[in-house]
């Protein structure tokens, strides 16, 4: 076959090379898809067959126990309307597995790979989940599910979601207006189907507000400052270190609670140990190791944070000021934000939570804290909350109604 090379003019050769490259690429691409399919099949260990959930129209899927608070208000609202639903989870310790009701069934369906095999074969009218990237990553749309809804579980903009997070959902239960704006922009840019974007709110706030009511008021002599940084490289702890707390405790009378992100114990154990060692004799300084931050939050009067995300909850639920270390965002390359050209909501609204300080101001941190503790009446946190979060305090009820409307509009498959 030496002749092949012989009789081809340059233009054809480039076309030919193009074919060959395309062929090879196609084959390689197909092979890779096949490889991942096989891999997921093999790793989808201990697969258990699907059961039929009878006449239930609504199924929720939760990736882990942390999302139970997102789903439970909806589930309970449905229950109140005598509507059945099923809760599937990938977490054996999910409290949802313990919950009992005549209108409720729950099931552990294994970790992600296995769960995806299960989910991809579901047969139901509505599936709601907090996991993004439906039909992009391993969880595919089941042909026998009529409607997929994504339930937003944080008051954040869509910038920091990974690529194609919402593209293949039928609806998104949004927490704020900014999500609707962003998703619409992406839809337009990508030419994907227009989703139903619902003004829902954050359902877990329902639960947290309920819990707040049960916390007995603390008898406080001194104000309390809660330091709640994130765990990553750019965190306040890593950047400012032990010195920050020295400055914080100097010339001040308030108590300080440090509540490191649980991951910090894993990623930077030396740093935590060092801080602990340094201040072991300081009565005003405590480290909160409780996985639930509710108590510390309730106790405190002010929060110092960086990019943790938890401060939104703090500001919205407790209406207390937040002091933020000025932090540049990580590049949003590879995330949804890279395709959006407007400013991200979090960045835009941060200053309204209290105050942003820079690294240079660390020496005067105690002054800043005192200042903010004393003069925070100007902050309109409730106003910010109401414009940023739909249906504060009763989002579960709203979500349930929205789901029921969706289900009601779906014709019974024949």
């Amino acid at each position, binding site marked *: 076959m030496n002749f092949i090379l*012989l*009789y081809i*003019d340059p233009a054809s050769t*480039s076309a030919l090379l*193009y074919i060959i490259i*395309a062929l090879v690429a196609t084959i390689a691409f197909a092979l890779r898809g096949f490889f991942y399919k096989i891999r997921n099949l093999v790793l989808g*260990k201990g697969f258990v067959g699907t059961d039929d959930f009878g006449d239930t129209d609504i199924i929720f899927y939760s990736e882990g126990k942390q999302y139970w608070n997102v789903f439970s208000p909806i589930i309970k609202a449905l229950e109140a309307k005598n509507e059945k639903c099923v809760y599937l989870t990938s977490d054996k310790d999910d409290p949802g597995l313990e919950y009992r009701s005549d209108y409720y069934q729950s099931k552990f369906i294994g970790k992600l790979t296995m769960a995806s095999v299960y989910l991809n074969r579901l047969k139901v009218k509505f599936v709601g989940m907090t996991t993004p990237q439906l039909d992009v990553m391993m969880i595919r749309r089941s042909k026998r599910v009529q409607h997929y809804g994504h339930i937003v579980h944080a008051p954040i903009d869509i910038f920091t979601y990974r690529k194609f997070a919402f593209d293949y959902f039928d609806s998104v239960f949004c927490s704020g207006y900014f999500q609707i704006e962003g998703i619409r922009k992406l839809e337009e840019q990508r030419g994907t189907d227009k989703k139903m974007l619902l003004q829902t709110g954050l359902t877990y706030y329902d639960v947290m507000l309920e819990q707040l009511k049960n916390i007995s008021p603390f008898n406080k002599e001194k104000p309390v400052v809660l330091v709640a940084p994130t765990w990553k490289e750019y965190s306040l702890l890593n950047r400012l270190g032990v010195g920050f707390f020295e400055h914080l405790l100097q010339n001040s009378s308030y108590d300080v609670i440090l509540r490191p992100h649980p991951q910090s114990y894993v990623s930077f154990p030396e740093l935590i140990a060092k801080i602990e060692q340094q201040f072991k004799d300081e009565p005003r300084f405590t480290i909160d190791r409780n996985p639930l931050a509710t108590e510390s939050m309730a106790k405190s009067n002010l929060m110092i944070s960086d990019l943790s995300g938890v401060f939104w909850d703090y500001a919205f639920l407790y209406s207390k000021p937040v002091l933020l270390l000025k932090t540049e965002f990580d590049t949003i390359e590879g995330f949804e934000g890279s395709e959006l050209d407007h400013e991200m909501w979090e960045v835009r609204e941060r200053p309204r939570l209290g105050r942003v300080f820079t690294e240079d101001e660390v020496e005067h941190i105690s002054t800043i804290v005192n200042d903010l503790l004393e003069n925070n009446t100007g902050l309109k946190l409730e106003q910010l909350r109401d414009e940023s979060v739909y249906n504060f305090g009763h989002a579960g009820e709203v979500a349930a109604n929205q789901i029921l409307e969706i289900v009601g509009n779906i014709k019974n498959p024949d």
Partner: protein
Amino acid sequence: MNFFEIALSPFIFIIKQIFLFSYSITNDYGAAIILLSFAISLLLLPVFILIEKAKKKDDALKLKMKPLVDEIKRCYKGQERYYYIKTLNRQHNYSPLRALFPVLSLLLQIPFFIAAYQFLENFTPLQGVSFLFINDLSLPDGLFGAVNILPIAMTIVNLLTAWFYTRNGDASERKQMLVVAGIFLVLLFNLPSGLVLYWTMNNVFSFLRLFITNPEVFKNRVGGKVGKLKFADFKSRALVLLPKLKVTFIVLLVLSILGQLNWAFGNDFNDIYFRIFASIGGSFFATLLLSLLLVFYIPAITLPSNSFKRLIIQLWPTFKSLFIVIVSVAILSQINWALQYYFSDLPLRVVLAVLASAALTSLLAFIVLAYYGYLKISKGNFKFCVSCFGPVYIGAFVVLAALSIWSQVNWALQFDFKDIVVRLSLAVAGSWLLIVFLVNVKNNYQKYRARIADALKTYFRSSRKIFLRTWIILTLIAVGSQINWALQFDFNDIVFRLIIAIISASISAIIIALLFTFHKKIAATFNSIQVKPAVFFGLLFLSGYFYFASIYYFSGINYNLGIVAIIFLIPVQFIGHIYFNKYRRLNHLWYVNLHSVLLVFLLAFQLMNLWVIIDGNELDFTLFNISFVISKTGFSDFILIGLFYTVSIVPYFIRQSKFLLLKSSRQDWLVLFLSSLYLAGFIFIWNPLVVYSSFPDAFGFAAVQIFSENIILFLVAIISILFIYFVLPSKVRPGYVVLIFSLALIGFFHNTIMPIDMGTLQGSKFENGDNLNLDLIFYLFEGLIILGVVVAANYLFKKKFTKGIAYGMLLLNLVLIAQSLSAALAVDSFWKVEKIPIADSHTITFSKDTQNVVYLMLDMFQGWYYPEILKDNPGLNEDFSDFTYYPNTLAISNYTASSMPSMLGGYNFTPDKIDRDSVNHLGHKMLVASESFQQDVKSRGYHLTSTEIPYSGIDKRKFDTYLPLWKPEWDRLKTPLHIGNSYEIGFSLLWANALFYSAPYFVKPIIYNDGVWFWGTKESNANSGLAKPYNFLRALPLLSDTQSEEPVFTLICSKTTHFPWDKVKDDGTFVPDIGPYNNNTWALQKVKLWIDWMKENGVYDNTKIIIVSDHGIRTRNANDTIMKGSPYKWGANNDDTRKEQLAFSPFLLVKDFNATGANKVDDRFMCNVDAIDIALNRNDPTKIEPPLKRSLNAYWVSWRIKVYEDKQYPITKSFRVNNNIYDSVNWQKTK
């Protein structure tokens, strides 16, 4: 013909037709080449437009996606990256596959290129033809001495195209095109100018094509990315380039001088100085050319910077160890080789080894870099270095390595040291691999342990229930049966029995439970699989196709085809099973359950067959008093059961999948009608007509009789096809139309585009019957073609192209009818076979008083059988004792068509002489030869008695007596010869032949199985077309008389001795296929009877008898039977040229007037052309003493002779032979 030649043949056909047509218009080969080039470019233009369109669209899309693709590639890897890119493709409607689809058609042009190359290269008439400034189109133009101008012109055109084409494109594409242009310049530089002309024009047209496909490149540059270059730029470029050019020059110079020296050492040193000067000049010019090219031509090229160096420096630490390993292995193996052979070129070898290792390492490095993200070489869990595992493992490694080295040395001490180096390196490498592997497994085990345990746990949990149930049932059965047994016999060892029973029940229960869970798991996973009907039925077809191809293979069951069938069968059976399972889960109907029981049985049988295949022994067992034996050829049963299994599941598959039935269209019936018209017409009417017309004399009937004889079959075939259509439910009718249309296309493909080479049909046997033993690749190719045809037909119907299809089929029919009618009408015997109006008795008459000559041509009689025949049949010695045998006789040619003219007309009509006349067709020239013979005979005063002369259209009225093969008057002889009724096999054979050629490969052996056609061959005493030549020979004594008063010359051309070598026994029974030796013996025995008759009637002594054959046996596999008594020094060798020489050893046996003697053998060098000179007594070489010292020519002619079309013989080889023909030393190939 090899596979590629066959695959190319349609393209060569097209090229040839266009070329010959162009030549017929222009009458100038050069212009014809240009026209050909233009026609091919025009033909491919739509394809190119399509491709360019697709490419542009694709490029635009890719460009749009690029930023996002890059972003994803930067941020993610592995599975995540894959999923994101997949989603991105989905959102942009971009599929690598879909982009590929229109482009695939480009592949079509490759065969055109190769075909043009092959055709023009082998096209001899180009020799000596001049065109414009080219002196000879079959040689390089050589306008400036050794420099050819055409390739340079071609390159200029190429460069121009490349420059424009990539004007707006990227630099890499331009570089690619430059490289290709360079390669072309080198490759085509010294090829015949005709070819280069074709290619140059092709490039000119491809340049012009740019105006159509890429008009934008001729407009102003978009974007102006490069900008106009100023002189200063060139200067700066040149300055950067200069030092590099020095290196280039030196490298080129050293290489070329070394090359020259190398050549000189090998040949001679005569003009070494000139050569060295030439290489200096050449290197200088090459460097200059290169630099000019770099400076002026490629403004976009980035000159090699230090980045390359940097890359190497970066890579070195990573790939150092790899390089060292490769280089040491390479060097060691070279040393090892040197140890065994010689050390003279060791340094060169070592240098080469190092270079090769460097190249290999770079390649690996490149691959690793390209796939760095996926492979995670550096960050992976797998560690390669023993030292990173700690001292214990180093110790273990050292011990292991030492042990293995010692064992190798020990082995070498006992046996030999030949490859000790390789062995030692392998020993060390093996120890290292073993240690590294073990440690890695150990280190990684812990990570996966939890995962595995988890999986097992879930496994156990889900199978617990089944296990318990099964266990209880099995235990009860086992215990119960033991107690039952004990009740009947004794309770002695009941405890032991019970324990065993329980244990075995438990084990069985575990196994069953595991199987169940496993099956459930697999089924649950696979039940989601959706297989498109096209894929399912495609696979089913292929497995069936290969199964039948395997069991009906021409030379017995073909194992490899069976394996291929299994490869296709397993997935389709699996898919079928899944679909059955799905259906079963939804519908627990009684027949489905019954079916599943049946399937279990089938599966069990299949597994047993599999066991037999693997085990290799027969398996027999008895069940319910019926004994089963599964034989060793289990694989075909395995497939058959699997096919049965799958086919029985097909209804469930159909129920479970979505079928898009074709919608009928108004033109459906028209397509159906035209397709059936084509199929039935081709088989029953038109192809028989074409075959008939190619050699009408072979058939004893008029062409028009083919119509009258086959019209009923033709109509029945068409009506049945249409009838089935009307009987079918309307839903499946379009599918049926597609099927018939596909059959027509498949038939067309096989009989017209890619016909198989079976040689001529002799009697009922194909001469090259063994060509049916096709290679696997043919079947693979054909299976896919058939599938492709059906898919394409389906697609065309789906897209509602029925009207176009109908037109196409109409055209096909018209072309077919026109072709065959024009061929048939050109034949004299279209309306009726001419009855020869000679009123004589049709007997062979002899003169008692004057002289007679008998010239008996026994077609294909193998010369050297004669002594063997005499040895085996001593009785014949007596009869042939007066004859002289000339063993050393050469045949002028291997074919009757090319031998016969000279055997009648002498040396004036040898193939080379006949070919000198390029005006008249061969048929005419053969006629001239036979008429010249007739005149020579008549001029010598003979009464000429003759049979039909092969390939000669001579008017039989010119013979004084014409002897037909048989005629009704001779029917009186049927009683003494025990011959039955006459009948004509021609009609059925002709349509069977057409059917055979139209059929797919796997059906062909069913239609034709080595002489046995599917309707069976009659082996009776009927005087059929097959038996007539034999009966004629038997009848010779009964047809002879001694009435003549003038001298008689009798020419008898008999095909009795020709392939397929049958005989007719004395009781009239036809015995087929007795092999050449037995057949030739039989023929001589019949001739002996005639000689006996001559002796009895007193016409023997005054008769000169010449028995001669036109050629020997042409064969592909010279087996022992054929080679009986072979005088060749090489015996039955497979060497092709030697096999050819068999065809050049004809028979020559002469008895002169009044000759007496005792079986004389004359070893003088003769040719079968001499026979006619002996017969007519002119320059008779047997009469010259001492024997002539001659050297004679022999011509090998292809069997594809079209007597009334070709003007020259298709001579493929020729030889010049001296002295003894049986010694290959004397054979010199001249073409």
